């Protein structure tokens, strides 16, 4: 799956004779129609995406508190940022969250998808039930539920204490609270699972049958058939889940009771960006932070796209 691609497959490009006959005026009319239909998107792209991107790049090099006009300070925001222990902490917290949470979530999603793909009765029901958390996981309600379940004296704490490992609830413990957020994202494994499941359904059954005739066991079949065949879907899930988890905000904010703590233990990147921009009115600093986030996401995306040549298998005649 190449993400960036001509939206109309080549086969469809054959022009009908009627339009070819009309020649240039027809093409001009098509261009006009195209741009008219696209005009909401074009306006949105210029005013809400491209413009703001340029503006935030400019703000990143200024001292700006929203009330006075922006003052050019060169690289000050960036040098300040790199030396700022709280910024470093937010990078560390976010990196930990992404590196631990995303693989766990995707492994669970793939594992459960493999289980469900065996097509037993009730598969549709389980698929729906496992997907449900992905729809509500971002809500404030679930944030409160999470905060309650992981508090001192609540079920998680009691279960853990029963095994003689008392930490007094994850929410109040700086060493544990991030895992509470990891648990929340892993709980929402249903969305990537559904995509894995759709990918698994497209693997030709003849391949498995042939492999079985050759005496391949389940493990062998998984590594030599399933994994290569679903690698485009795996790539898609890794890309989207990684990019999304870089941007976690709401759940960290709500579960930590707006404090992104304790002791900055849940100070995810966007939480710090929010504090700097909207609590301290440091719009320049926050913009510099936003651009660093963009660079990080772009770097990860580039590495993933570069690496897909090595591990993503695209069937030539699949489309």
């Amino acid at each position, binding site marked *: *799956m*190449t993400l*960036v691609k001509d*939206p*109309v*497959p080549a086969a469809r490009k054959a022009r*009908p004779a*009627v339009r070819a006959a009309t020649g240039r005026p027809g093409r001009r009319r*098509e261009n006009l129609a*195209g741009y008219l*239909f696209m005009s*909401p*998107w*074009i306006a*949105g792209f210029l005013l*809400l995406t491209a*413009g*703001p*991107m340029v*503006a935030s790049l400019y703000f990143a090099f200024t001292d700006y508190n929203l009330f006075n006009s922006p003052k050019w300070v060169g690289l000050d925001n960036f040098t300040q940022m790199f030396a700022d222990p709280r910024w470093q902490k937010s990078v560390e917290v976010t990196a930990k969250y992404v590196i631990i949470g995303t693989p766990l979530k995707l492994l669970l999603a793939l594992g459960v998808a*493999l*289980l469900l793909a*065996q*097509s037993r*009765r*009730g598969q549709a029901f*389980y698929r*729906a039930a*496992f*997907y*449900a958390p992905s*729809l*509500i996981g971002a*809500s*404030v*309600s679930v944030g409160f*539920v999470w905060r309650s*379940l992981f*508090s001192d*004296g609540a079920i998680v704490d009691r279960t853990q204490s029963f095994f003689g490992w008392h930490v007094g609830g994850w929410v109040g413990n700086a060493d544990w609270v991030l895992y509470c957020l990891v648990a929340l994202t892993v709980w929402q494994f249903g969305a990537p699972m559904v*995509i894995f499941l*759709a990918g698994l359904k497209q693997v030709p*059954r003849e391949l*498995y*049958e042939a492999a079985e005739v050759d005496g391949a066991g389940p493990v062998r*079949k998984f590594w030599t058939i399933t994994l290569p065949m679903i690698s485009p879907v795996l790539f*898609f899930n890794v890309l989207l889940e990684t*990019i999304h988890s870089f*941007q976690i*905000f*709401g759940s960290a904010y*709500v579960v930590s009771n707006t404090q992104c703590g304790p002791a900055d233990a849940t100070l995810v990147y966007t939480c710090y*960006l929010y504090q700097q*921009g909207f609590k301290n009115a440091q*719009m320049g600093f*926050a*913009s510099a932070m*936003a651009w660093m*986030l*963009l660079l990080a996401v772009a770097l990860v995306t580039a590495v993933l796209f570069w690496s897909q040549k090595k591990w993503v298998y695209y069937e030539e005649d699949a489309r």
Partner: protein
Amino acid sequence: MSATTTTKPGVLGRKGTGSLAWHLGALLILAVILYPVVWVIGASFKPGKDVVNSLTLFPSHPILSNFRGLADGIADVRIWTFFQNSLFYAGGAVVGVLVSCSLTAYAFARIRFAGRNLLFSLMIGTLLLPYHVLLIPQYVMFQKLGWINTYTPLLIGKYLATEAFFVFLMVQFMRNLPKELDEAARLDGCGHLRIYWSIVLPLSRPALITSAIFTFINAWNDFMGPLIYLNEPGKYTVSLGLMMFRDSDGVAADYGGMIAMSLVALLPVLLFFLAFQRHLIDGMATSGLKG
């Protein structure tokens, strides 16, 4: 989708896995996954002091006072006001996304115009762009326009097709509709507007429904947008209204009320899900397959 064939050569093995083991495994996962949802239902009928510490899922003496308390509202705002605001936001977002994204998708999928491939790449690029890069300048712009504490900043993007995911979803769908349909219509003298409105749009219903439900749920759950742009309790959405139930020290004054309100806030999403789960899941599944 052949969901109910009993056994087929799968990944993990053939008949060997055993139906009982399969169901036990699935049920175990189900129990863990659904626990928080069941918990919040039970907890909303417990007295506030028992919410965290009582381990029984459902109280032996369920009480309704948490829900009755909601009728009084919070900080002089009626609970219903939050729901009205959320409905306005989510409803407005649905209309905007349906109109603007379907027009854009039609252009990408059915019109050959100069620069289309470039614009399509840009559109896909915005799909991967972290929203936070736009956050500060957008806020500055909306602040200068005097739009803070209104719903305009939250809705304007929906009317300008900035929700690239839905454009993408609709393009995927529309480009698979038979091209012969528009050619026939064109021979009959129909312009693009007619083809869009009477042929492509009706045939794209599944994609439109999926986009509409996702838009509704996303807007309903949206927290950061309202947090940044709305600052008067009377204008708060359900998400922000919920936040009013906690004290600054984190111990809710009315813990029972907070949990009851959490449950009530989840209900619309859960109902939508029960009604439309097929559309949601199939829409989600196809997003990863094509492209």
